[in-house]
């Protein structure tokens, strides 16, 4: 029989969308001085969700000033224990409002509710909970007996995990006594605006968190503002390079979390079903909009013939569609621009000689969609093996020996993540030791935890977020 799953949509009623969202500066909402707004869309059907203020240089000035004031008069002087209790409050409110945040994130970003509900939002709460606990224990972090905050942090975050990236930036900054001015991504500002409300609900002192919405120019004005002591950016390597250049000579501290071209190495002794599962989630989790995605599969030749049919069979079971349907595995591509980029580079792969495969998969008529895609016969020289696609496209390469696997995995300007699949512990450790990547997952993939540091080698950026190491970026 055919076992068709009936639609099981999560209700939108838990979200009360406002028509417009203003800037969150000094504890209150105010319009941008330029009076300009941009519209954020639901990428699953291209309907407008809300209008969001576009912050200009004057808004950046007042937000940085508010953050400075709050840092010097309140936040920097407060005991760590009291700061921590604010963060615990925020963690609890995130837990209480978790369904609202999950639905809103899926609406604004296009990612499946299954992921926002089970991954993004729980990790956000956990991240605040974790760093809350550090606030009064900084002397135990191994960074000296009395580490000091830097001051005002200018933070710019991407659209792939909007609220989670906010948490990664805000929680450690606040725990260490810094205040922040944060700019969410142009296409996904809405959960950040609910986060602003959460700051109010937690009675966080005004100016400790300021949120400026806008596009690239807003972000540029923010990171280049002379009043910022620290710049933290997550996004593309191209923008990261520009920021590094602009920060040079200013004395600002900088952490960058940029692109990646992660290799997932499958040895012939791997637990094959779990390896298939890990390769699938490694590239198709969040539509492949993951900087640490396992976008290159390196499978040992002796097992490739068995592995690929299992992989394709598994991909055929993925359910693409309405992000709010609880059974959806693959949601919408976040924007028209991103969809165009994925199309262009994937077509190039085909043109360069890779074999392209996608399962039979109906794409919805409206919205931005891209079917899960596998490119086989890819070689190191192909563009699809070197450039970050940031979409649901897996490039498959093969190798013969562990040395060759490591060489190919490292043969990229990036160095964010890698995966190693083998049942042999010593080979796993041998491989991990040689991989030039900031995170190596073995027999699992795309696992995140607030206690675990995350960040890249080489052009994937510098600095670590998460864990004890994540404190260092905000302490002097």
């Amino acid at each position, binding site marked *: *029989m055919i076992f068709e799953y*009936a639609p099981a949509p999560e209700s939108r009623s838990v979200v009360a969308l406002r028509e417009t969202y203003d800037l969150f500066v000094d504890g209150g909402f105010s319009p941008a001085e330029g009076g300009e707004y941009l519209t954020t869309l639901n990428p699953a059907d291209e309907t407008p969700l809300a209008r969001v203020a576009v912050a200009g240089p004057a808004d950046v000035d007042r937000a940085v000033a508010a953050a400075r004031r709050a840092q010097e008069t309140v936040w920097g002087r407060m005991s760590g224990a009291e700061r921590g209790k604010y963060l615990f409050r925020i963690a609890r409110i995130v837990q209480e409002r978790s369904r609202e945040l999950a639905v809103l994130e899926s609406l604004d970003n296009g990612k499946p509710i299954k992921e926002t509900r089970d991954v993004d939002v729980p990790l956000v709460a956990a991240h605040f909970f974790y760093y809350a606990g550090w606030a009064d224990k900084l002397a135990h972090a191994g960074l000296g007996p009395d580490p000091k905050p830097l001051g005002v942090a200018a933070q710019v975050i991407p659209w792939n995990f909007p609220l989670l990236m906010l948490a990664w930036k805000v929680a450690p900054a606040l725990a260490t006594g810094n205040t922040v001015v944060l700019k969410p991504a142009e296409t996904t500002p809405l959960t950040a605006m609910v986060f602003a409300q959460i700051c109010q609900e937690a009675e966080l002192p005004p100016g400790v968190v300021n949120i400026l919405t806008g596009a690239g120019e807003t972000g540029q004005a923010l990171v280049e503002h002379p009043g910022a002591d620290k710049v933290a950016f997550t996004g593309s390597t191209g923008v990261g390079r520009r920021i590094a250049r602009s920060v040079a000579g200013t004395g600002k501290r900088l952490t960058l979390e940029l692109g990646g071209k992660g290799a997932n190495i499958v040895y012939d*002794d791997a*637990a094959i079903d*779990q390896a298939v599962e*890990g390769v699938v989630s490694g590239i198709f989790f969040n539509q492949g909009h993951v900087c640490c995605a396992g976008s290159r599969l390196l499978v040992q030749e002796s097992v490739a013939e068995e592995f690929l049919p299992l992989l394709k069979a598994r991909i055929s*079971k993925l359910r693409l569609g309405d992000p709010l349907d609880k059974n959806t595995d693959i949601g919408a591509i976040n924007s028209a621009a991103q969809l165009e980029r994925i199309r262009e580079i994937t077509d190039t792969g085909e043109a360069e000689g890779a074999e392209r495969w996608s399962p039979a998969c109906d794409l919805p008529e409206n919205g931005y969609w891209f079917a899960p895609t596998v490119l086989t016969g890819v070689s190191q020289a192909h563009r699809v093996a070197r450039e970050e696609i940031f979409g649901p496209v897996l490039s498959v390469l093969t190798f013969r020996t562990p040395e060759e696997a490591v060489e190919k995995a490292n043969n990229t300007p990036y160095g964010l993540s890698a995966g190693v699949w083998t049942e042999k512990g010593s080979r796993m450790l041998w491989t991990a030791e040689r991989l030039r990547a900031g995170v190596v997952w073995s*027999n699992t993939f795309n696992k995140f935890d607030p206690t675990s540091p995350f960040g890249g080698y080489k052009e994937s950026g510098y600095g670590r977020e998460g864990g004890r190491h994540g404190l260092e970026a905000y302490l002097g």
Partner: protein
Amino acid sequence: MPHTAFAPEATTNRALRAFLHGLPGVDEVGARSRAQDLATRSIKTTAKARAVDLAISMVDLTTLEGADTVGKVRALCAKAANPDPSDRTVPRVGAVCVYPDMVATAVAALGGTGIGVASVATAFPSGRAPMEVKLADTRRAVADGASEIDMVIDRGAFLSGDYLKVFEEIAAVKEACGAAHLKVILETGELVTYDNVRRASHLAIRAGADFVKTSTGKVSPAATPPVTLVMLEAVRDHHADTGRRVGVKPAGGIRTTKDAVRNLVMVNEVAGPDWLTPDLFRIGASSLLNDLLMQRTRLTTGTYPGPDYYTLD
């Protein structure tokens, strides 16, 4: 490759061991997480209604107690033939499953309904009896009219590495079954690791099992989702290698409609829709049936039913 067909006539313990230990390992954390992920599937409305009916048709309605009596078995058979006296559209169950000495009673009670009788055999549940006793147990149940035999493997032999003994027992029981279908109970709660579950599944399949079954229901844990997942992968792989479809029967611990539907989702997404038939998937249970019937009522009437409106056993 691990999945190469295994020729029974060439069997030595060494060859069996090489084959079974050459199968890919199962990562426990990964298998659990896959099972957990499948359990988040949300099956609603029309899909749920079809799933409930399908699950009812897959139930092996079971009584396996030392206190079983002729009266108890007859009552169970009446329930199997007519699960909900107030609703004739309810599908009939897959089979009735009893101890060997109750087979004749069950066959008589089910006469004319077309519902088969499954009998546990081979010194169920421990399997600790001489081979000739196990075979006699099996032959007697078949002679009394059992159309399906649920045998237990010798877990002691399996755990001590005597795979050949397990293999030969299954093959001998299969022969004793004649036309009756053979379900092989692995008692995964005693095998403990998923590697063992995978190996025992392939061993049973290659020795002639028509079904692999998780548990006797007498050992905890019984049919956990990851165990069923690993067994579904085994029958999927065997089909890919040989073209032969072997069934899977989780038994023990599946008490609610939610559990049953999660099992069907797993069948659908792991082995594939071809397995969504009572010929290839059964659920060994007793209290599950009433919960399925209650959910059926809930779906048709929209109100929550109470247990007093459903017949016992």
